[in-house]
Structures are given as structure tokens and as C-alpha cells.
């Protein structure tokens, strides 16, 4: 008998707590597959954020540390500088990374920290109940923008990939989506490229992943994927924004 599909070794057997239709599970699996394929499980240290993926330490089968809100890139810096041969991955959402952790992410990138950031952008604070995030689109209804995000009050959604690509310390910056199988495959390639960038010592790497939040968007799983395509992708274009070769 031939095994054609199995759980990556870098994932534990714990069941994901994520809501039906949420794409965190796919992204977790992509990260785990990349770590496995690069044979780095025993060399990897993961940092999980505050937010929906706060329990990621139960799901990844390598050394994990739980960070305070937004601080993951600073914590990863603290570890990486002491153990430069380890693979450091932070897994962060948009509230965590683009709001309360804005200073930490910008400076980790500016310093060219050799870490990889998996940035899951679903345009809302998921765990706290669907409040407005820095990435919430104009007009988007959330629990703290009940009449839709107004640019006069809340300004404009932040494009993190474009912003960080301007830093010299950034070596690989991309934006991907996990809305269909083709894009999932592309997302995995991008995450792997980011990890390779780190292990080659080229500098800071981040993959922004456009993700869904059916529960807080008030949509079904399929409709959520369509909402992502129709609303997020025009404002947050996919692609590579910075690729530093050796």
C-alpha cells in the first residue's frame, strides 16, 4: 500500500479549533509541509501570536513560544540572535502584526532579522469578536465599524507587504491567498521561498496570506472565499514585492 497523503510531521494530532471555513488550518498545514520538506522540524522554533492562532503551539510539532500581542518579531529576534542557525517562524494575524505590533514588525524588517513571518490577513480581529482591524476595507462592516469603515474616521487599510518591501532589511516579501487550490499551491511555494531566504541568511522575510473569517464576516465558507476574491484581492494585490537574491 502506498501513502499518498498524510499529516505532516510538523503538525501534532490535535484537532484545530478554527471555525468551519476558516483558512487558518490550510495555512498551518502549508507551513508544516514546508518545514518537513526542508527537513527542519527539529531546528525550527515557532512563535504564535495573540489572536485566533493563539493556540498554534498545540498544533505545530516543534518548539513553540506564545508571545504577547504584537511582540512576536521582537521575541524571535531575541532567540535568533542567540541561536543564528535555528529557523524562526512567527505566525501572526492582522490586529497583532499591523496594529499593536507595528513597531516590532517594521523594526525587525528594518534590521533585516533573519526570521520568517507568516502574516494572516483576514481584515478583522477574529478572536475578540470581529472588530475593525488596520486591514479592514473601506466600507466594511465590523463590530466597531457598524456603519462601515469610514476613511474620515478610521483612515485607510494598511498594505503591510508593500510597506515592508520598502525596508532595505527585507529580503523576501510576498502576498498570497488561499482562496482556491491553485493559489494554495502558490502560497506554499512562497512560504518555502521565505524560509529558504531566512536559512540563506539574506534577511527578513514575510508572506502575507489573504485569509477568510466566515464567522465574523457573517458569510458561509464558499461565500467567504468569493468575498475575499471580490473585495480583498483588488485592494491587496497578490505577488512578490521584494526578492533579494544572494
Amino acid at each position, binding site marked *: 500500500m502506498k501513502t499518498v497523503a498524510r499529516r505532516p510531521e510538523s503538525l501534532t494530532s490535535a484537532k484545530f479549533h478554527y471555525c468551519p471555513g476558516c483558512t487558518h488550518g490550510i495555512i498551518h498545514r502549508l507551513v508544516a509541509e514546508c518545514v518537513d520538506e526542508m527537513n527542519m522540524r527539529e531546528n525550527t522554533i515557532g512563535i504564535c501570536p495573540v489572536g485566533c492562532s493563539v493556540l498554534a503551539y498545540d498544533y505545530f510539532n516543534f*518548539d513553540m513560544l506564545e508571545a504577547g500581542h504584537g*511582540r512576536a518579531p521582537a521575541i524571535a529576534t531575541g532567540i535568533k540572535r542567540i541561536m543564528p542557525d535555528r529557523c524562526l517562524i512567527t505566525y501572526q494575524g492582522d490586529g497583532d502584526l499591523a496594529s499593536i505590533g507595528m513597531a516590532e514588525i517594521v523594526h525587525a524588517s528594518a534590521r533585516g532579522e533573519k526570521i520568517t513571518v507568516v502574516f494572516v490577513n483576514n481584515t478583522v480581529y477574529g478572536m475578540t469578536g470581529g472588530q475593525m482591524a488596520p486591514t479592514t476595507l473601506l466600507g466594511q462592516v465590523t463590530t466597531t465599524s457598524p456603519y462601515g469603515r469610514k476613511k474620515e474616521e478610521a483612515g485607510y487599510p494598511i498594505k503591510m507587504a508593500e510597506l515592508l518591501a520598502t525596508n532595505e532589511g527585507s529580503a523576501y516579501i510576498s502576498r498570497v491567498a488561499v482562496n482556491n487550490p491553485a493559489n494554495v499551491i502558490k502560497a506554499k511555494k512562497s512560504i518555502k521561498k521565505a524560509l529558504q531566504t531566512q536559512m540563506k541568511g539574506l534577511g527578513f522575510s514575510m508572506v502575507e496570506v489573504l485569509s477568510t473569517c466566515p464567522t465574523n464576516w457573517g458569510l458561509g465558507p464558499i461565500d467567504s472565499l468569493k468575498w475575499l476574491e471580490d473585495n480583498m484581492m483588488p485592494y491587496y494585490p497578490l505577488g512578490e514585492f521584494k526578492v533579494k537574491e544572494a
Partner: protein
Amino acid sequence: MKGNEALAEGALTAGCIAFYGYPITPSSEIAEYMAKKFPLLGGTFVQAESELAAISMVYGGASTGSRVMTASSGPGISLKSEGISIIAEAELPCLIVNISRGGPGLGGIQPAQSDYFQATRGGGHGDYNIMVLAPSSVQEMMDFAMDAFDLAEKYRIPVMLMAEGTLGQMMEPVFPREKVTQFTEKPWAITGCKGRKPNIVNTLHLSPEFLEYRNSVLADKYKTIKSNEQRAETYWTEDADLVVVAFGLMSRIVKKAIMEVRKKGHKVGLIRPITLWPFPEEQIRKAAESAKMFLSVEISMGQMIQDVKLAVNGKVPVEFYGRIGMIPSPEEIAKQILLLAEREGF
């Protein structure tokens, strides 16, 4: 040697391999010293973008089981309090230095002891304590930095070294002592899971039962530290009618005042807490058996006096004398003691 430099040198001697910090007066020489030394020694120096980032880097560095530190002053420690609470619950050893200045708010850059509550009551959220050592000389800045790392590892607890700004800035002769470092095994460290099950460093406990359990683990540890590590110096307390309590550099000023009033025939003693947490309750309780009165002298509006009162437990009165902004002089303290002596008839 300058106090801040002596402290940094002590940390290096104790095997500190990383410093993560953010500049703030009057602590910055520690960062500058490390920035100069670590590139030569092969250690890590990172100037963080903020105090929050600096303490988060300490959290990361300490999770690897390495000896790491940061240094700041009151306003910076306020920002660091988020991370200190996390590190305390994650039970990671590290050294946090507060070269303290006067508050509240941005306050000034003059020496002060008004961060006593911040240091001894946790400062951040939740039920936790950190150990706090208060040196009173440049020599002790160096020695306590070494001791701090051993204590931090022994109890898996952040240790704070808190010294008035003057101690950081002033120069005194220092005798380096040889260090026999007591490194402990760290099976909990985050180093990559080669040949073992993955380790998790985490402070999120959503189950009420587990949260209660975690708090009881910490409480038990704090109880052990309280019974093992109360440290104080006592002078002339055996026959003392009045016992003055003062820590840090203030204790040296008080000592001078006491020597003067002793010459005039007044029986006055001094207790100098070395550990501010755990507070040396035992020494105070013992002195309260024979003394008629206590006087807490602080560079604040009165913070440590609460701990003195708790230890004295109503047996005798506890008076207070303190200034903040300015520092009480030996003459001033002597005058205060003489006033009390006259009033109480000792």
C-alpha cells in the same frame, strides 16, 4: 569604576551573553558598555526599537536558557511591565535593571526610590512577584549582578536589580571577585526539538482549573523564596530604642546620621534591606521585639514604610521621613531622629 559599568561587568562575569535595551537616563551606560564589549566577546547586543521590544527580546533570549538582561529606568520599566508579567509566568530567568529616577510621569532624572511599589508589587498585571535586589555601593552593583543570575536560575524567576541613579553614575573602587557560576540544567528551554519532544513556553491558560493550578505553583515558589532569601544588613539594633530602615544608597546616608546621634547618647540602629522582595520581615520582626519605634527613611513620599509596618505588625509605632526630587542629607536625618528622641524620651 562607574556604578553602571561595574554592574555590566558583573553581568558579563556571570555569563550574560545578550543585552537587549533601549536608552534612558540614568541607565544608558550599561547599554553603552555592552555595545562595546559584546562584539569583542561574541555576545549579542541589540538596541531595541522600544522598551516593549527590549523586554520581548529578553523573553525570547531567556527562553533559550541563556543568561540575558536588559536595563532601564522607571518610565521604561513601566513599559516593560507587560513583558515582566509574561516572563514571571513563563518562569524564565533573566536580569532586569532599574537605575531609578523620580516620577511620576516623566519626572526627573535625579535619583529616587519611588519605584519601590512598581518593583515589589509586580508592576504588571496578575499575581506575580519578581526578586528585587538593592545594592548600596558600586562594589555591590557588580556583586549583585552576579548573584542575580544565580538566583534567577535557581528559582526560574526574573530578578531586578534596583539602584538609585546616583549609584549608576558615581565612581568607587571595585574589587572584581572570581565567579563560580551556578549554571542549572534547563530541560524546558526552547532550542529546537532535536532528540526530544517539542517544548512549549506559554502563559495562556484558558482552563480555569489550570489557571488556578499555575497560580498555586507560583505562590508556592514565592513562599519558598520568602523563607530562603530574605536578606538585610543590621547595625546596632541589639540595644536600639529607634530602628531606622533604609535601603540602597539612602542606607549609607542614614548610617552617617546614626553615627552622629549615637555620639550624643541616643540608641539608634539601622536595618538595611538588601532584598526588597522578599522583604526582610524576619529581621524587622526580631528588632521590633526590643525597639520602641521604627523610622522608615526613603527617597519617596513613603512606600517601603508599608512593608515595615506589615513586618512590625502594630507592635510599635512606625514613623516616616522622606523627600523626592531632593535627597535627605545626613544632617536632616539626624535632626529628624533627635526630634523623635526628644518627643519619645529615648
